[in-house]
């Protein structure tokens, strides 16, 4: 039952990580000296009455431990506080933003994975040739470019061809559902491409090294000796085994995808979670920032946990 043991271990790890993130969130915003909520003078244009109301609302007259317990209790009820900016509950704001983020995130990431795996396999297969060099150098180039800058370059390149800001055309009213979807897709093209391109370079390099490693194994030599075609050797023997490290690395890159998403949404004014973080920073809207950070951490931890399970499914030998 080592498998059950492994899954239990990963579950406990994920739960403890979530708890640490929640506590970190509390310490950063509440307990640290000069932190956001304790320093109420930072709220713009706060009157004396508002200060008292806030103090009561956040329970600042109580001890830190009591505050921590209250904070945890409110979290279990899904209460993340109220945004300073638009006076809506943070959870409502995040929910709206999430539905805007997911499609762009999925399209961009899928593009990166598919394109990265294909180019990585080609580079490894043709290693040492001009094809390999060009592919690898291009990938390294996209790996080295700042996400926000690449987004700006695409805006300049596609000026007038594709919309560069927002999610829908504000002048498109009373449109049919089909026209609406088309409009959103046109707006999604550049941000998703930016996210995809900054990620793909990294995946190409990772897939290429994983492929090179498996291509040197004895079973590949055996497959070749059996007279299988190059393509069959690559697809059935090398690529399958190369997918193991690739899957882990893609899962581990989630933290980066999240960071890239923030920058991309900031450049293209895409109204998602990343933009919520950006706006919250600009407006010093601490409840929003706190909620968004918690949400991003939870999703990364969850996805890593899922990746752990997938990895176990792919390679049952793994127990550590």
């Amino acid at each position, binding site marked *: 039952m080592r498998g059950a043991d492994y899954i239990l271990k990963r579950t406990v790890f994920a739960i403890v990580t979530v708890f640490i993130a929640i506590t970190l969130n509390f310490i950063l915003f509440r307990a640290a000296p000069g932190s956001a909520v304790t320093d109420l003078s930072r709220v713009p244009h706060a009157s004396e009455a508002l200060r008292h109301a806030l103090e009561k609302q956040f329970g600042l007259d109580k001890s830190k431990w009591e505050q921590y317990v209250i904070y945890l209790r409110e979290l279990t009820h899904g209460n993340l506080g109220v945004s300073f900016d638009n006076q809506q509950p943070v959870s409502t704001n995040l929910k709206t933003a999430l539905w805007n983020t997911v499609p762009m995130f999925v399209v961009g990431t899928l593009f990166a994975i598919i394109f990265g795996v294909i180019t990585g396999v080609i580079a490894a297969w043709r290693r040492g040739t001009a094809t390999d060099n060009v592919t690898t150098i291009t990938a390294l180039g996209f790996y080295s470019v700042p996400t*926000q*800058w690449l987004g700006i370059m695409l805006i300049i390149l596609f000026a007038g061809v594709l919309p560069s800001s927002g999610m829908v055309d504000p002048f498109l009213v009373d449109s049919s559902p089909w026209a609406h979807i088309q409009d959103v897709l046109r707006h999604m093209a550049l941000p998703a491409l930016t996210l995809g391109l900054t990620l793909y370079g990294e995946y190409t390099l*990772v897939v290429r090294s994983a492929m090179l490693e498996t291509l040197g194994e004895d079973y590949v030599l055996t497959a070749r000796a059996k007279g299988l075609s190059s393509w069959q050797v690559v697809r059935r023997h090398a690529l399958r085994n190369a997918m193991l490290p690739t899957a882990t690395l893609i899962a581990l890159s989630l*933290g980066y995808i999240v960071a890239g998403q923030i920058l991309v949404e900031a450049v293209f004014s895409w109204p998602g979670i990343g933009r919520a973080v950006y706006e919250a920073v600009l407006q010093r809207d601490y409840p929003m920032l706190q909620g968004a950070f918690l949400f991003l951490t939870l999703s990364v931890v969850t996805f890593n946990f899922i990746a752990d399970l997938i990895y176990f499914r792919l390679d049952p030998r793994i127990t550590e």
Partner: protein
Amino acid sequence: MSSSALQHEPGIVADAVQPTRTRGGFLWQVIKQRPAAAAGAAIVGLFIAIALLAPLIAPYGLHDQVGAPFARPSAKHWLGLDDGGIDMVTLLIYGARISLLVGFAATLVSTLIGGGIGLLAGYFGGPTDVVLMRVTDYFLAIPDVPLMIVVAAIWGPSLFHIIIVIGILLWTTTARIVRSQVKSVRERVYVKRARALGAGNSRIIFRHVLPQIAPLLVANVVLTVALAIFDETALAFLGLGDPTQISWGKVIENAFQRTAISSGAWWAIVPPGICVAVVIMGCSLLGQALEDALNPRLKVAHLSVKRWRIRPLVGRAGE
């Protein structure tokens, strides 16, 4: 420790001198042998020189308005002017200073923290190892850029804060790499011999363990500098950079915020991004070549495996 003192302990001389000799020449040796490393080192060296000599080579002052806002590139101003009428070449030269300063200073912070934790965990093992590595694991699992944004937003924008924030969030990979290396060095015969001769922990660590892991630390430092520069541009773009300091990230942010795109002033926004990309590429080429040179498995020529790192969640890739 002078060499004359060492000569009285013949057993240690052989072991202690040998790594020193290979360490001194290690960087140079790799650069001579690998064109990728040479190219990377040349790029990084060039930009370090530009950063150090900034006041001497910058054609104009950093705050001098020398023409109309967004003036086109010309013979006098090769890359045109920015929204304030400041020469772009001057901005880029001074920007190199701040970007590289953040890169190296944040790396120093993260190497001290990560190296210290890795050294303690790997050298002492047992419960120390378990506790420290658990902490490292949890830090690895929390996405670091959002955490950086939160901390930078709460602390307020200043160069010092940016350096500390990036430094204290990039140490996890270093800790893991150093730990695994120290664990193997600790078991080597010459370390055991030194201990048998009565050497204390600190002497063993500083005379025998650290020199052995130094080459690996150098490779790690180069790769971390790239990450730190990258993170600085991200923080600057989100408005969390020091408003009084011009870095490449800040130049990109300024150009974007002040409508360089709609004014058609590509020269205000394309060059800083290229500078960042070139430096990151240089660091990646050099760091990767150094890591490859250290990996004995890769001496088998036909298996030129490269372990590219995931950024900024660098980590388990290197294990």
